[in-house]
């Protein structure tokens, strides 16, 4: 199941949460609920800034060590995006429920897996950002993220954006990169076997997806490269999702 379709998102899907979002792309569907700023527990309270609490719930079973790691990655990234210093002694809670993961008929699938799941990180981060926007939590910047793999095919190296589970299994290295809307690298995760040069190529490919601005720009880039290597324009997607939501909400005017 490769990412042939465009990402989809819906904002404010849950009636009771302050903000929520549902995002699906490349076989992953994640729902986020965001509450905040709310009162923090005494142990989490910070005198100068808000505490960002991220909870990741897997599609099946209960969260294990892998989910704790994902939570700590997201927590440190989101704390950089949210203006935490505006809300001292408060808590901003982000709950991410994974609803669907892509099937992989080629692999033994186990319920509890301890190793880090790279392709789920962009899905979780995108959903969290959309949820925070829906909850109108003040943020310094938004973030976009993507996953890329370096695969060897017919004796040549190739960077595959949004790899399928089968490509992931055969990949030499897998990379997750996230950028803020100021084009800064906020999160980088890589594993496998690669050189600095390969990482640079991956960085270029990821920056192209995450850091493009404007619809016109995106269209020309698509035409030049063809749809083979070019993934979706994540920033454009984020903008259009919010524009559509604002337009729908202000329809009565």
């Amino acid at each position, binding site marked *: 199941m490769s990412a042939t379709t465009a990402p989809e998102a819906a904002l404010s899907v849950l009636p009771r949460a302050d903000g929520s979002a549902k995002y699906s792309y490349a076989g992953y569907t994640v729902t986020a609920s965001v509450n905040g700023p709310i009162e923090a527990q005494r142990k989490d309270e910070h005198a100068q800034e808000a505490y960002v609490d991220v909870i990741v719930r897997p599609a099946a079973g209960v969260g*294990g*060590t892998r989910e704790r790691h994902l939570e700590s990655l997201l927590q440190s990234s989101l704390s950089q995006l949210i203006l935490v210093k505006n809300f001292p002694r408060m808590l901003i809670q982000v709950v991410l429920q994974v609803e669907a993961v892509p099937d992989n008929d080629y692999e*033994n699938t186990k319920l509890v897996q301890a190793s880090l799941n790279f392709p789920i990180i962009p899905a979780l981060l995108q959903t969290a950002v959309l949820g925070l926007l829906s909850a109108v939590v003040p943020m310094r910047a938004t973030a976009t993220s993507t996953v890329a793999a370096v695969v060897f095919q017919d004796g040549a190296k190739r960077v595959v954006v949004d790899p399928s589970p089968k490509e992931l299994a055969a990949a030499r290295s897998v990379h997750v990169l996230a950028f803020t809307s100021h084009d800064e690298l906020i999160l980088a995760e890589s*594993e496998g076997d690669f050189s600095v040069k390969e*990482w640079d190529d991956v960085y270029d490919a990821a920056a192209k997806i995450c850091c493009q601005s404007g619809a016109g720009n995106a269209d020309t880039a698509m035409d030049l490269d063809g749809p083979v290597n070019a993934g979706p324009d994540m920033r454009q997607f984020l903008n259009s999702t919010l524009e559509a939501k604002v337009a729908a909400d202000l329809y009565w005017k």
Partner: protein
Amino acid sequence: MATPSLTFPRSVFAKLSPHPYLLRTLTTSPDDTTTTTPTRTNGRAPSEPRPLKIHTSSLSHAHGSALVRAGDTTVICGVRAEILPVTSIPQYRPVTDYDALAEDEEEKERRDRAELKDYDLLVPNIELATGCAPQFLPGVPPSTLAQTVSTRVYSLLHGSGVVGVEGLRVWDTSRVGATAEGVDEEEEEKPRLVAYWTLYIDLLFVSYDGNPFDAAWTAVVAALRDTKLPEVRWDPDREAAVCGSRTERAKALGVRGLPVACSAVVFLEKERGEPGEGRHWLLLDPDRLEEGLCGEAITVVVDCEGGETRVRAMEKVGGVVVGRELVRGFVGVAEKRWKEVKAAMNMDGQAHGALGAFVEEAGSSR
């Protein structure tokens, strides 16, 4: 009457306002001499790691062990191997022909890794002992830090491929060559895969002073290099693996490459400012005080064993200071660290090598 003094000793200042304390030591030289190099609170230069001490084979009941010490971070790692018969693996999928697989290098490598992962042959566990640092309290479930480090070690063990599955397979060779009647001769000649070794890799932090992942990973690699699996024979009558007790017959577990982890944190000049404004320092091998003050951290795992530098894993979280250029530069820093860690491992190996030669001599003269 003496007026009460308003000067504090350094330790009090460090506790009361740690951020200005660290900033002050970085911006001014310690004794106001001519030196202009910034110094950290622990007396190190920003890019100076703590000296590493490695001691292997200190646990007598483990198949391999290592004690790693970097400053006040001390971690002990023990590797214990246990037999896992294939009959007790759920969803075991036997490979019928290993020879055919061996032809396609890429496919074989992929299958080997999948085998390690599917049957859970590597089981790392990390414990931050009560009292190793003040924040770890007794009687609580494993902290987020312990779980995070455990996931990272597990991912890196599988991602870097330091342990090959070949060394963990246990074969039944008892019927090789024996041609039983009525059975196809072709099938009988091949050894049969009957069990795997499962490696339980337990890490215990005796003392914790920052940078847990580097220390933990160094301990894992050192312990795996030290691991010797006992001689094993499959007893077809009992349907069980029988291990020999003679230590000199034990086979060293082959470890591929030498991946070395190198971590740093980013210290920002402005405690409450926007990220990215003001000066910043990259502090290599941070201690507990520095980790508490810095949000952004970078870890790069490199392996220069083949002459060429290969990056095996990278993690950068919690900030926007480290961009593309700094990541590139940091790989160079990691290369330097790799040489130091290799030297520390070899130094330990030499000490043991001398002892090993002595034991061998004593054994042969008997």
